[in-house]
């Protein structure tokens, strides 16, 4: 069942963010910043866009998502739990030795995870393979691939972009979670990535730039790219790292750090 009410989707995104904080606090490790920045993107995809059935997670004709920025697994796990792929109690076991919720997603352990990921730069090629298969078998399913902005410093992303373009993968939509921060600081300082939109355009993509923390803008963008034929699409989602938790917002230091008890309480209060 697809949820269309913007208010309802916003409430789910808040639940997802609470899940993220719960996971990272329980594990006392993990990556809250990027997970919070992409929570709205994943919420819209899983609750409003994708053709999926939690009761049949490996259905052949399902839409697929590759979380190429695998370290943002807390957001994906929270979404999948909320969607009913597994019990939400599992979230508290994130990164623990007896949990299926590995630090980075494992497709063989977690129902609903379409691809293992973690080593940055690799997911888009995998998404291409899935999208090519959809075309080859005329199955019509769509493939989404969520990239980090820092991640696209990896050369393989651009190798993959040429492949998406060569094979006119209009059933592929990549989303760049453009929160402008990476571990060592701002994207601009570390690698001077600059014009991401222009880069994807030059690689043959249909590109939309939107506010990636605006649910309605995301719904509209995903609907719009579905109608584009003959080329792959890229949505540059301008987001805020740490979105929703005041002391984490726009702070590179919250890329990979867990909150202490006091910070946890403040964060959960803010996300009520």
């Amino acid at each position, binding site marked *: 069942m697809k949820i269309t009410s913007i208010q309802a989707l916003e409430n789910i995104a808040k639940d997802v963010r609470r899940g993220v904080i719960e996971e990272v606090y329980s594990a006392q490790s993990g990556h809250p910043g990027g997970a919070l920045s992409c929570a709205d993107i994943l919420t819209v995809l899983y609750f409003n866009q994708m053709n999926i059935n939690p009761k049949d997670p490996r259905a052949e004709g399902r839409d697929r998502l590759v979380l190429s920025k695998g370290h943002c697994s807390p957001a994906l796990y929270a979404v999948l739990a909320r969607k009913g792929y597994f019990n939400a109690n599992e979230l508290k076991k994130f990164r623990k030795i007896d949990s299926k919720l590995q630090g980075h997603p494992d497709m*063989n352990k977690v129902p609903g995870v379409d691809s293992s990921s973690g080593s940055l730069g690799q997911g888009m090629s995998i998404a291409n393979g899935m999208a090519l298969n959809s075309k080859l078998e005329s199955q019509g399913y769509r493939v989404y691939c969520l990239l980090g902005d820092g991640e696209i410093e990896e050369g393989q992303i651009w190798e993959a972009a040429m492949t998406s373009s060569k094979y006119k993968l209009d059933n592929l939509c990549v989303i760049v979670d453009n929160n402008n921060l990476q571990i060592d600081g701002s994207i601009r300082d570390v690698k001077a990535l600059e014009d991401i939109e222009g880069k994807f355009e030059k690689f043959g993509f249909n590109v939309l730039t939107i506010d990636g923390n605006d649910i309605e803008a995301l719904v509209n963008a995903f609907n719009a790219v579905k109608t584009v034929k003959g080329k792959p699409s890229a949505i540059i989602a301008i987001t805020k790292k740490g979105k929703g938790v005041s002391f984490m917002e726009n702070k590179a230091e919250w890329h990979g750090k867990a909150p202490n008890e006091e910070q946890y309480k403040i964060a959960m209060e803010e996300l009520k």
Partner: protein
Amino acid sequence: MNTEKKIATRQSYGEALLELGKKNKNIVVLDADLSTATKTNMFAKKFPERFFDIGIAEQDMIGTAAGFATCGKIPYASTFAVFAAGRAYDQVRNSVAYPNLNVKICATHAGITVGEDGATHQMIEDISLMRAIPNMMVISPSDDTQTKWVIEEISKMDGPVYVRLSRYATPVIYDKNEKFEIGKALQIGKGTDATIFATGDTVAEAIKAKELLEKKGKFVRVIDIHTIKPIDKEMIIKCAKETEVLLSVEDHNIIGGLGSAIAEVLTEEYPKKLIRLGINDSFGKSGKAEELMQYFGIDAKSIADKF
């Protein structure tokens, strides 16, 4: 062994792939701008809709193959060994082996027998790299017959496989009716003076060495270890018990390759000295394949001279 009829295992691969494509619609083939050299071009011509040339982008090729595998396809991904196991190592590790995906990495131009292209293109660490990855099976066929069998056989098994193929044309060792089994080494000869363990393009050299030694009154056996992982422990232990001298020969760095794999078994199961022939921790160089085999001491005469 038919020394008149020489076929490079990359050629056998191309032919086998074409046959396999006819039998199994789930086979897709990926290449990285080397289809004329890896011989996937035969498949490409017959089944263009199932062939994907990813261009000079080996990392992307391996990832794309992984994506296909998540959808139930059986991708055969090919390029030179130096790019498949070297350049795309992390993609093989994380995108293919960790999720245990059914990708068959068929790497041609392995070893110094690549010849004139020289060290940058002579992959001598791939066995070492690939066998250290969990879930990965490593196979190094020795002739045309065995290669054709391997290429079809691995399509029937689920999981990642690295197949090491050669550019260098080598004699046809086995009759078409020969029975092979994954994980089971083959014994050629019953000599008890020594065992020569070999794999890939050094098996024919080992057999020639065996013949040279017979003329001198030394009777040895050759063990063709096509499956390097999982390795045939039983055969290694049996030979250690039955023969006096143990020697391994490979077109690979002696660090981490066939000799190392055998030594690991011997150390734990039946401690005995093993003489390892191979590339002695140096890079290759340009030259003709035959000259290089002599230079690095892995040709028949060099093997025989060790006794």
